[in-house]
């Protein structure tokens, strides 16, 4: 891309790859932080999953122990920018599942902590649930994931390095 085409492009079009990069790094960081906060205590993560009372017991350890590692791996994929669209879609699906889980826990009158960033499980007497905040946060992240799936081509990504400079114009 030479200087003359750069000047002819509207500012939004020029800003989009940078916005995409920003969203990608933000979403990736959130996944890594969320995964890291659970990975040190897998037993707690398993209890947090069990507290939703959705999954059959045989599936609970797989989800409880696998989720923290999945989140970290997904975060790393997004941060390095490898298969960004795929990562964004998986993020969106995961977040949709989380939202559904929290809404269902709320609807069934369970009193639990979502365990989103570690912790989780039954709340004690006098502890307030925070379903509204938790759902709002996940919906915000879901919107970011959607935007990233729509515009995955950003700067500083492995995808861009693989596809090479010839695709820059139409990426």
């Amino acid at each position, binding site marked *: 891309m030479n200087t003359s085409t750069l000047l002819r492009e509207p500012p939004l079009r020029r800003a989009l790859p940078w916005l995409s990069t920003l969203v990608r790094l933000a979403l990736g960081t959130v996944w890594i932080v969320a995964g890291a906060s659970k*990975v040190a205590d*897998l*037993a707690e993560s*398993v209890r947090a999953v069990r507290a939703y009372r959705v999954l059959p017991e045989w599936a609970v*350890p*797989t989800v*409880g*122990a*696998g*989720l*923290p*590692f*999945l989140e*970290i*791996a*997904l975060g790393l*994929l997004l941060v390095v920018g*490898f*298969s960004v*669209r*795929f*990562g964004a879609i*998986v993020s969106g699906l995961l977040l949709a599942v989380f939202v559904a889980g929290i809404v269902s826990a709320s609807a069934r009158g369970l009193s639990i902590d979502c365990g989103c960033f570690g*912790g989780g*499980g039954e709340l*004690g007497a006098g502890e307030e649930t925070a379903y509204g905040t938790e759902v709002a946060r996940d919906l915000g992240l879901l919107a970011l994931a959607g935007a990233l799936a729509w515009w995955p081509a950003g700067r500083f990504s492995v*995808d861009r390095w*693989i*596809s090479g400079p010839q*695709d820059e114009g139409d990426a």
Partner: protein
Amino acid sequence: MSKQNRARAVSAEKLARRRAAERRKKAMIGGAVAAAVLVAAVIIGLAVYNTRDKAPDQFAIPRGATANTVVVGKPDAKVTIDLYVDYQCPACRQFETQDSAALDKMVADGTAKIAYHPLAILNRFSSTEYSTRASAASGCAAEAGVFDKFTKALFANQPPEGGAGLPNEKLARRPARRRRSSRSASTTRSTPTGAQRSPRPRPRPV
């Protein structure tokens, strides 16, 4: 449009189509690799969880206890009552204060034995993981042959939820005097040194 130009346009279109197909292929392969990475992550998580799960078996089991329980009463008693207790749990305390006389009677006349399962489920209501410390200390009490008495003492002095709980020094204090005679053989083997051993909290029971 001249013939030449048309030919050029067609070949440009072909090239663009080929490029698009190549991009799609790359994206598919990338997606497959990324999916494999995520699946591998889940498998690693499960493997880590399963190996970690076996750790508690490697701890020295106190005398008069099994890996999960401390049994109070005659081993040949017909009925076994399983009690799952967290020393910080108010409901457990209530049960203990209301029904311990009846339980003691059944244990004393050999009708029943009690299998205690000390649990740590209420650590988050303690700033010092009191549930873990108390249940770990109960293992030392079992080793010293004073589990029953220790349990009664801890429920009698149960700290409120949300606080620091009893300090380790207090948990480790040797009971003044033993009363019960219905205890198993471990009582006779226990020594004052055994009773004074400081309870070192072990990792949270799973």
